[in-house]
């Protein structure tokens, strides 16, 4: 049987990549350790080495192919004594793409601290690993039960000695609504929770009880942690957005390729403002402050059963059209429950916009470990005083919630000033 060369996973969260370049041709002899191909992900380019020796029988994936799934067969290697006839049918039995592991929503690093909304099956028989590469400690029985239920242990908290996951934890996770997924399709959507009508005790009125979904638990846990442990402070400014609305209208009239929303412009402005005030693009780690080099904006999207925060990477460096189209795609994926972990993890700053509901102003809860979140209210006509004269302008109030451990008041104010300037004079975003 020819040896299958599989698409490698270059990082624990990688699900697919681009086969950038073949370094060998069909018929070449390769030895163990020879570089045979280059693989590209959004993060890096890596070389793939042969792990066995033989002759390259067939390259199944053309150079430059994007979206090659991890564990797809990309080439066949003939072993000693095998000829091309051995290739027939060999590729067909290629293993199905391995399921990707879930990870919790909106964690700007890759460490899943909490159960993911909706669990996916772990690759069978693979050593269970957390997304950051740490081994998951679990009893053999817990592993067996999780495997049978399609539960990923990397999101389960262990109550055994030194945090080891034991039977009781798996039972609790399964009972707690971390729904096993039947297929490999990623499903960060909440599992439909059965409603129960309960008779109230004492003087409590009757109610319907919805058991918490996995996502609900993540939201509860993370936001409780945030409000209880992060010293929030709040800064509010009013932005006149008539210029911004005019620019949007102008840009949208030029092409049907895109349709910019006010939110797209706010994402861009936030990214640019963070680039101007990098001290606000920060996260407290417990023993220091991480200052992120890229402004990756998490945008809260309401979905059935909760919310999720897909990330626009490097918002400052992207054009409005790109941001707008990416955002549409991410929001659609979010609503369909198809976001990949790397699409909702790892943002450095969040935006929550409730303007479309007519909310004038609100204070958002910081999405840890990020250092700040911008709460965006509705643009509405208000009386304003410009240069000593009363007039009418479209005004949008925004409130920045800031983690005081990472970002001080003056820095937060500086960021908001830069943001306001960009919003009120949006052409400067081009600079």
């Amino acid at each position, binding site marked *: 049987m020819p040896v299958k060369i599989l698409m490698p996973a270059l990082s624990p969260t990688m699900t697919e990549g681009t086969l950038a370049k073949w370094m060998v041709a069909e018929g070449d002899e390769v030895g163990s350790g020879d570089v045979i191909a280059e693989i590209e992900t959004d993060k890096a380019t890596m070389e793939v080495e042969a792990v066995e020796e033989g002759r390259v029988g067939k390259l199944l994936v053309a150079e430059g192919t994007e979206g090659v799934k991890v564990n797809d067969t990309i080439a066949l290697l003939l072993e000693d004594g095998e000829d091309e006839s051995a290739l027939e049918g060999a590729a067909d039995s290629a293993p199905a793409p391995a399921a990707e592991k879930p990870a919790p929503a909106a964690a700007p690093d890759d460490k899943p601290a909490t159960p993911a909304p909706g669990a996916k099956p772990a690759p069978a028989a693979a050593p269970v690993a957390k997304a950051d590469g740490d081994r998951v400690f679990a*009893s053999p029985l817990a592993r067996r039960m999780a495997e049978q239920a399609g539960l990923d242990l990397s999101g389960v908290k262990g109550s*055994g000695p030194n945090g080891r996951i034991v039977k009781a934890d798996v039972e609790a996770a399964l009972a707690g609504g971390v729904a096993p997924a039947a297929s490999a399709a990623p499903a960060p959507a909440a599992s439909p929770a059965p409603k129960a009508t309960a008779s109230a005790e004492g003087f409590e009125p009757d109610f319907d009880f919805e058991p918490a979904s996995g996502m609900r638990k993540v939201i509860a846990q993370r936001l409780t942690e945030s409000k209880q442990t992060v010293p929030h402070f709040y800064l509010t400014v009013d932005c006149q957005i008539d210029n911004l609305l005019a620019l949007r209208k102008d840009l949208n009239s030029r092409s049907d390729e895109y349709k910019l929303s006010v939110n797209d412009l706010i994402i861009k402005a936030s990214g640019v403002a963070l680039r101007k005030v990098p001290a606000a693009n920060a996260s407290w780690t417990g023993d220091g402050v991480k200052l992120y080099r890229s402004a990756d904006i998490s945008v809260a999207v309401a979905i059935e059963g909760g919310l999720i925060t897909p990330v626009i990477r490097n918002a400052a460096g992207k054009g409005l059209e790109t941001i707008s189209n990416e955002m549409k795609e991410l929001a659609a994926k979010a609503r369909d429950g198809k976001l990949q972990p790397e699409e909702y993890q790892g943002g450095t700053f969040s935006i929550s916009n409730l303007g479309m509901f007519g909310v004038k102003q609100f204070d958002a809860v910081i999405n840890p470990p990020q250092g700040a979140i911008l709460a965006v209210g509705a643009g509405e006509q208000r009386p304003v005083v410009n240069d000593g004269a009363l007039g009418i302008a479209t005004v949008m109030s925004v409130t920045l919630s800031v983690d005081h451990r990472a970002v001080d008041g003056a820095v937060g104010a500086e960021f908001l000033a830069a943001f306001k300037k960009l919003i009120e004079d949006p052409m400067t975003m081009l600079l």
Partner: protein
Amino acid sequence: MADTNFDVIIVGGGPGGYVAAIRAAQLGMKTALVEREHLGGICLNWGCIPTKALLRTSEIYHYATHGNAFGLKIEGVSVDLPAVVKRSRGIAKQLNSGVGHLLKKNKVTVFDGAGKLNGGSAGARKLKVEKDGKSVAELTGKHIILATGARARVLPGLEPDGKLVWTYKEAMVPEAMPKSLLVVGSGAIGMEFASFYSDLGADVTVVEVLDRVLPVEDEEISAFAHKQFEKQGIKIHTKAKVSELKRGKDNVTATIEADGKKTSLTVDRVILAVGIVGNVEDLGLEGTKVEVDRAHVVIDKWAQTKEPGVYAIGDLAGPPWLAHKASHEGVICIEKIAGVKDVHPLDTGNIPGCTYCRPQVASVGMTEAAAKKAGHKVKVGRFPFIGNGKAIALGEPEGMIKTVFDEKTGELLGAHMVGAEVTELIQGYGIARTLETTEAELMHTVFAHPTLSEMMHESVLDAYGRAIHF
């Protein structure tokens, strides 16, 4: 004047109390132990240990009188009963003073007397220590742990008198060998004494109210042991009860009721082994929130009673009535008080039970019937001693090891053994259960040859149709 303020005061120096005291001292707590009689409690002085000493004698006697099975001619073997008892008492004494040294080494202050709660409030509980009705000390403790153990249960009409009708205590120090003996109750205590006296030549009858001997064990194990006991000459009446004891001058006539019929049996002595009751009296529980249910103190999973700062462990706090349960409970209780990380409540499903009769019986986890009742679909493995080389070489071909697995998950739900040395084997399965191994890890484990433990492997293999030697 000795110091009377302590972080923790433990009342009762048995295997629950003294272990808790040492653990508390290890964790840096100022610890006092109050003991009214002797350190080591029943276990060490009148229970586990001295009976094991007696059973060792009866075991050797059995081998000596069956020397021809091993190619030995042993003649003139006889029992020197006072020497047998003296050896047993000597061992108890040795361990008793050993506990004293351990407590001293760990700087636990020991008070000689009976402890009684005497007011105070959470964080500063008062305890009075009395000796011979006189108060000898007034102690204050942040935490008080009650570990006063239990005593033999007495049935109306069958009250022990210490001369003709014994409890475990008199049965352990016989002055003369009874020619015939009636044992009431076929639990661990009853069957151990039945074995001891039967092996030393007494004519032993056992009466059990339930439908089988060793009723807490797996049914197959009970049935297997039952046959072995009968083969040795022990007469067993199940679903029977002793309704009356007529005490003569040097014998007792018992009325045994079974199937609605009454028969009478005259024996030299009677041993009562019908369970135990907690020593809940004279602890000053009146006026506290401590709840007592059927002679046992009610506790939560951390051994906390309903009264803040007052705890109960061991036999006093309910079944299983085992020394190792008391010790472990004591350690958990202390570690919880000390705020040690990773303390886990006691999982009674992982407490092994051992009976040192001949053949020995040992088990951990659920019986097959209990597993099925709990809704498990089970896979059951069995392996007989006759299939094991070491067992045959030892001349112990009678016995079996039974394992019960959950069919779906491969969880080892229970393990049940009967035969030579199984009390030493059971711990392997105990570790397996605590580590939550499945059948796969047990199958992967290499068992040394030739050992009895190989049967543990084979039993697991058998559950999956893979036994090699049978």
